């Protein structure tokens, strides 16, 4: 499959999305989610720098990996266990800019946690987005557990677990892949390899070049994909989804990508990476890259682009305004929901 993708691209790329079974509308939808994810994120930094909100953690640079993979799922049927960068994933699956901003401002209406968790800790049982905590890699086992439940009930729902390459160092990552391999579960492991765990470069995290190479040790395929090529990610995920849905078992997809911002608003990335390196990767920004493709393919015309920009801006404006003015939780909201129902 990988060879085929390369071929299509070489032919000028004008029909890659159609070759993947994506209609023009769907191809544009992918683009719009990427744009929205980026725009919400940029707005958050702005607000944070103005001192109106204490914390941002970004998806910027990784939208290709996120949206490309999530768009290969059936929303509300399939499951995801995202990590804190995955704004692109959850927006693709039904969360809204308002939801993001409500969580960013930690308001009572925040659907993920009612303002209890930091931004980036997504969750919605309705949307089949598993709640995420901060400890990395735990969600890989949760995803395997979700897939196990589907298997027991003989349902063909697919589950994707998302994680950074840093999280791959945790024991839970090994354990999840091992179990998924044994039982050929319908789970896909998507590693967004952005080369750093906060400041620690990949070379200090592992002795290998590709996280995907580990899949062989668990008895299922590992695939390396250019994470900044949203269609390549879509293709790899679509293939993995087919495997998963038909009982052939897990796939580990490693999407090579980069984060454009510091680790979070509390980090200063100049302490550990060169401005030149960031600049080089900015050239590979997945959004302009896909934009060029869509333009060349004749799908993204000026008016379409303008409409998208307008919708995105409107959503971000609306979400910001709505969320900033939404009510905080009150002190009475501190105690409830330790348990499903409070004990009598």
């Amino acid at each position, binding site marked *: 499959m990988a060879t085929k993708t390369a071929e299509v691209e070489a032919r000028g790329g004008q029909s890659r999305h159609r070759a993947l079974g994506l209609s023009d509308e769907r191809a544009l939808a992918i683009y719009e989610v990427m744009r929205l994810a980026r725009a919400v994120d940029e707005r958050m930094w702005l607000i944070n720098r103005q001192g109106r909100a204490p914390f941002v953690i970004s998806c910027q640079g990784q939208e290709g990996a996120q949206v490309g993979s999530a768009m290969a799922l059936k929303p509300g049927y399939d499951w995801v266990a995202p990590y804190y960068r995955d704004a692109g994933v959850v927006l693709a699956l039904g969360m809204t800019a308002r939801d993001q901003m409500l969580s960013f401002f930690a308001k009572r209406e925040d659907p993920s946690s009612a303002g209890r968790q930091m931004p980036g800790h997504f969750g919605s049982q309705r949307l089949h987005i598993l709640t995420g905590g901060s400890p990395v890699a735990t969600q890989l086992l949760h995803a*395997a557990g979700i897939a196990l439940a*589907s298997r027991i009930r003989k349902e063909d729902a697919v589950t994707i677990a998302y994680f950074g390459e840093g999280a791959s160092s945790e024991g839970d990552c090994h354990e999840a892949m091992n179990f998924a391999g044994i039982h050929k579960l319908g789970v896909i492991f998507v590693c967004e390899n952005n080369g750093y765990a906060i400041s620690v470069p990949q070379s200090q995290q592992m002795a290998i070049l590709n996280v995907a190479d580990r899949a062989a040790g668990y008895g299922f395929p590992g695939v390396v994909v250019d994470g900044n090529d949203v269609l390549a990610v879509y293709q790899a995920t679509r293939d993995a989804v087919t495997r998963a849905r038909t009982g052939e078992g897990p796939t580990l997809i490693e999407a090579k990508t980069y984060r454009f911002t510091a680790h979070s608003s509390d980090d200063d990335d100049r302490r550990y990476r060169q401005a030149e390196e960031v600049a080089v990767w900015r050239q590979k920004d997945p959004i302009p890259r896909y934009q060029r493709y869509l333009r060349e393919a004749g799908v993204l015309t000026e008016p379409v682009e303008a409409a998208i920009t307008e919708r995105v801006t409107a959503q971000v404006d609306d979400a910001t305004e709505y969320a900033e003015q939404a009510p905080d939780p009150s002190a009475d909201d501190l105690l409830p929901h330790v348990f499903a129902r409070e004990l009598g």
Partner: protein
Amino acid sequence: MAVKTVIEAIREGMDEEMARDQSVFIMGEDVGQRGGVFLATDGLFKKYGADRVIDTPLAESTIVGLAIGAAANGMRPIAEIQFADFIAPAMNQIIEEAARICYRTNGDLNLPIVIRAPWGGGVHGALYHSQSIEALFAHVPGLKVVAPGTPADAKGLLKSAVRDPDPVLYLEHKRTYRLIKGEVPDGDRLVPIGKAEVKRQGKDLSLIAYGLMLHYCLEAADTLAAEGVEAEVLDLRTIKPLDVAAVIATTRKTGKVLVVHEDNPFAGVAAEVMAVIMEQAFDALDAPVMRLTGPDVPAMPFNHVLEAAFMPSPEKILAKARELAKY
């Protein structure tokens, strides 16, 4: 009503819940073909198949992590940790995930998970097959912790734990498995989580315990009675949420309380019981609340002399209770 052992009661409880509810399934090390190292799941693999009685790889974080995911997707997993002593690899999944998920989602997702773990000493299990872990987990908000002592409570609490919407750590005392026999009511009888039970009435002093220590306290109470001291024995059964009302009631009744557990004392369950009494029944005390616990050493040694020196016993309880009675 029939007489059963604790382990039979637990097995029966699981069997009935699995028969009743298709979403209940079991996961753990050696729980399948082998029926568990204590045979707690004996026969269930044959009866319910490999899909519902799953032999996991040797990995406790796996067991609990899978349980969380499966519960999020509509199942009611019973996760077996082979020995309580081996639960620590799963602590991140239990404490940081299972216990916090209902709260962190503001109630959007609750996790009906039972984590079963054989605990306690007196079985020549040495440092790593004798541990008491209740204080570590009871400290963590978001978990329920039960520790039944009798076959009837073991079955009734197992069934309640399976039906509970939240993560329940179900502690089964290894030494009681085959040692303790008792009547178990027939049919679908639940024992509520969060309710202690007075297992023996008394007016002179109160012994508060759970698990194996319940039986040692009852034994000590018999001797005390012969000496003219009527000891009330309160079986906590559930450690978290603690039945504070029952603790305060027995304190107000007798004015003298001795708390007994195998776990070491520092910030243990006895300390919490003492704190609660301090806060809510200080005026009712005729003596300081006392505790008799395992020593503050890392765990129970293998050698039989050392093991006996470590374990609270009916004799040690008696000695302390006499001291309290005389106060």
